[in-house]
C-alpha cells in the first residue's frame, strides 16, 4: 500500500462510531486512492455498512475525520448532512437492500437522480414552471445522461417500465445507474453482487471496471470474494469494527489475520468453536 499518488481521494482517520455501549467502528483509518476500486470486506457485523453510512452522511461519526478531496474542493464529510455530501462532495451510494423508487419508471428514477443538475437553484426552478430559463435544454441533457447509463447497464429496453417490476438483477444494475447519474467522484456500493447469479456477477465486474475507467473511484463492500479479488486494487479488511488488514488482493489473501477472521483459527480472542458457524 505504497501511496505513490499525491493526496488520496478519501482518507478515513480514526473513525469511531458508537451506538450506546456498542462500538460498531473502532479507530478505523484507511485511504482510498483516486481511480482505484477499494474494497471493504469482513465477516458479518464487522461494521462495513456503518462505515458507509458515516461516509455518506447517514450517520454522524462519534469521532474521527473523513476527508475527501478532488477537483471540486476539499470536504470534511463528518460535518456534512447526507444530501450535501451527495450534491457537493459528489459521493453516491447504493444500498444493501435495493432502494429504488418502485412506483416510478426506470427513466424517472434516473431523472430524480439528476434533480440538482435539472434545478440548480430556486430561480431556475420557478422559471421552469413557465417553461423558461433553458429548462428544456437541461432536461434533454438529463435524458441523454440517463440514456447513456441505461445503455451501459443494459436497461435501455426497459426505460419506460416501473422500476419495481424489474427482475432483481436489473434492479441492482438500475441502482448503480441511478447513483452514476449524480455524476459522482466516489461511488460507494454496498454489496452490489448480493443475490446475483454467476453470469450477472461477471457482468457487474465488467460494469465496475468500466466505471473506474471513466474516472470514478469506487468504494465497495462485498461478500462475493470472486468479484472482490478480481476487480479490487486495494482491500481493507474489518473485523469487530477494527481494521485487521489492508493491502492488495494478494497481500490480503495471504494475511494470516484475515484467514483467522474468516475461518476463526489462531485468533487469541476467540475460542475455535465459533468457527463452526
Amino acid at each position, binding site marked *: 500500500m505504497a501511496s505513490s499518488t499525491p493526496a488520496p481521494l478519501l482518507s478515513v482517520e480514526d473513525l469511531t462510531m458508537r451506538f450506546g455501549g456498542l462500538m460498531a467502528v473502532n479507530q478505523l483509518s484507511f485511504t482510498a486512492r483516486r481511480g482505484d476500486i477499494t474494497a471493504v470486506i469482513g465477516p458479518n457485523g464487522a461494521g462495513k455498512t456503518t462505515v458507509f453510512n458515516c461516509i*455518506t*452522511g*447517514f450517520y454522524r461519526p462519534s469521532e474521527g475525520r473523513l476527508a475527501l478531496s478532488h477537483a471540486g474542493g476539499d470536504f470534511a464529510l463528518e460535518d456534512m448532512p*447526507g*444530501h*450535501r*455530501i*451527495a*450534491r457537493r462532495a459528489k459521493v*453516491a*451510494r447504493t*444500498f444493501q437492500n435495493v*432502494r*429504488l*423508487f*418502485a*412506483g*416510478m*419508471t426506470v*427513466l*424517472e428514477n434516473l*431523472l*430524480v*437522480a*439528476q*434533480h*440538482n443538475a*435539472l*434545478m440548480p437553484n430556486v430561480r431556475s*426552478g420557478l422559471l*421552469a*414552471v413557465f417553461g423558461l430559463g433553458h*429548462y428544456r435544454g437541461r*432536461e434533454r441533457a438529463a*435524458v441523454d445522461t440517463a*440514456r447513456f447509463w441505461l445503455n451501459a447497464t443494459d436497461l*435501455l429496453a426497459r*426505460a*419506460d*417500465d*416501473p422500476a*419495481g*417490476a424489474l427482475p432483481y438483477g436489473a434492479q441492482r444494475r438500475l441502482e448503480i445507474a*441511478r*447513483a452514476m447519474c*449524480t455524476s459522482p467522484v466516489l461511488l460507494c456500493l454496498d454489496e452490489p453482487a448480493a443475490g446475483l447469479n454467476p453470469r450477472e456477477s461477471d457482468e457487474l465486474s465488467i460494469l465496475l471496471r468500466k466505471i473506474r475507467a471513466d474516472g470514478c473511484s469506487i468504494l465497495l463492500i462485498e461478500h462475493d470474494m470472486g468479484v472482490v479479488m478480481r476487480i479490487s486494487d486495494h482491500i481493507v479488511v474489518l473485523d469487530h469494527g477494527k481494521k485487521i488488514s489492508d493491502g492488495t488482493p494478494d497481500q490480503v489473501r495471504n494475511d494470516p489475520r484475515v484467514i483467522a477472521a474468516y475461518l476463526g483459527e489462531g485468533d487469541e480472542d476467540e475460542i475455535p468453536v465459533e468457527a463452526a458457524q
Partner: protein
Amino acid sequence: MSAVPGAARAAPISAARPTPARSPVAVALRDAFLSALVALGLFGAMIGLKTDAGDSALYLTPRPRLVAIAVAIVFVGRLAMVGWRIWRPAGTPSPRRLAATLAHTGRYVAPVLLVAAVTLPLYAGRYWLDLGVLVLTYVMLGWGLNIVVGLAGLLDLGYVAFYAVGAYSYALLAQNFGLGFWSALPLAGLFAACWGIMLGFPVLRLRGDYLAIVTLAFGEIIRVVILNWTSLTGGPNGMSGIPRPTLFGLTFTAGGGQGSFADFFGIEPSLTQRAIYLYYVILGLALLTNWVTLRLRRLPLGRAWEALREDEVACRSLGINVTITKLTAFAMGAMFGGFAGAFFATRDAFISPESFTFIESATVLAIVVLGGLGSQLGVALAALVMIGGGEMFRDFAEYRMLIFGAALVVMMVMRPRGLVSGRTPSVSLGTAHEIPPELIAEGHG
C-alpha cells in the same frame, strides 16, 4: 436451497385442507350460512329490539320479521357472491381487465368533464350553479391536498387549517385594509403557505401515524385560536360583510346601480349573474391548481415529491434536500388551500369557526383517498360523487350517512387504491404505460 423451506411450508397447508373432496355447492352454502349467522348476531339486537316510550316507561318491542328479512338478504347475497366467484362464466371481465378499460376510457372522461364544467352556466339553473360552486371548491381542496398526500405521501389530517387561514386572511385584509378579493387572494395564499411551512418544520421528523396526529392537532389549534381570539376574529360570531368579488371593478349586486356589472352592460340585474361569476372564479382557481400540479409533476420538484413518497432514504443519497422538498409540498398544498379559503369567504360573505371543523379535513382527505392518491381525474370524480352525490341524497335525510358509509365500504372493497389508482409516468423514451397501483408506495410521512 431457498426453495426448500417454502416447499416444506406449503405442503402441510394443502394437506390440512381437504377442499377437493367438498363440492362447490356445499362450500357456497356453508359460507352463506356463516354470514347469515354473523348477520343474526349483529341485527338480532340492532333491528330485532325496538324501544317504545309508553305512559311511564320504555317498552321493548321485538321485531322478528325484520330480523328474518335482514338475515335472509345477507344469506342470499353472500350465496350469490360466492356462487358468482365459483361459476363465473368464462370471458367475463375480471376486475383487472375492468380497470384497464376504465383507464382507457379515462382519457375521454377528463375532456368531457371539462367541457361540461365550462358550459354548465349555459344550461343549468341557480340550484345547479350553487351545487357546482360547492363541488368545485372541494375539487380544488382535493387537488391541493393531493399535492401533500398523493404526491409527497405526507398524511395531513389538518388541511382545513389552511382553508381557515385563507378565509380569515381575506376577511381580515378586507375589513382592516379595505383590500378587494383579487388583491387579497395572493396574500391569502401566501399566508396559508407560510402556515404550511410553520406546520412543516415541527413534523419533518415524524412519519405515518405520528404525522397524522400532529397535523390533526394543528388543524384544531388554528380553529380554537380563531374561536377564542374574539377581538380579532369575532370568535364564535364569525365575521360578516366580507366583500364580494368584482370583475375589473364591476360589482354584482341584486339592485344593479352605478358601477355594477348589469349597469355597465345594460342588462337586467340578477343574482344569477353573481352565481355565474363565482362559478367561473372557482372553476378558474381549481384549473389553476390542476395546471400547476400537472406542470410540477413533470419538473424536478414534483418528481422529488414522488420520489420522497417512494423512498426518503434513497432521495437523500441522491443529493435531494428532503427538508426543503417536504416543506415545499406543505407550502404548495397550503397555498391552494388558502386560495380556496379566500374564495369560500367571498362566496358566503360570512365565515365562522364552525366551517373549519375536523370533518372538513376528513371530507377532503376522503375525496383524495377515494379518488386515488396522486390522480387528478380521480380526485375530481370523487369530489363530484361525494359532494354532489351527498346533495342528491339529501331527501333521504337520516339514511344519507348510511348510504354514504355503505358506498365507501363497497368502494374500498372493489378498488382499494381509489377510483383512478394507476400512475402516469411523467416522462418516457417511447410510449408511457400506466404504472399499476401495487408498485406505487402510499408514503409513510
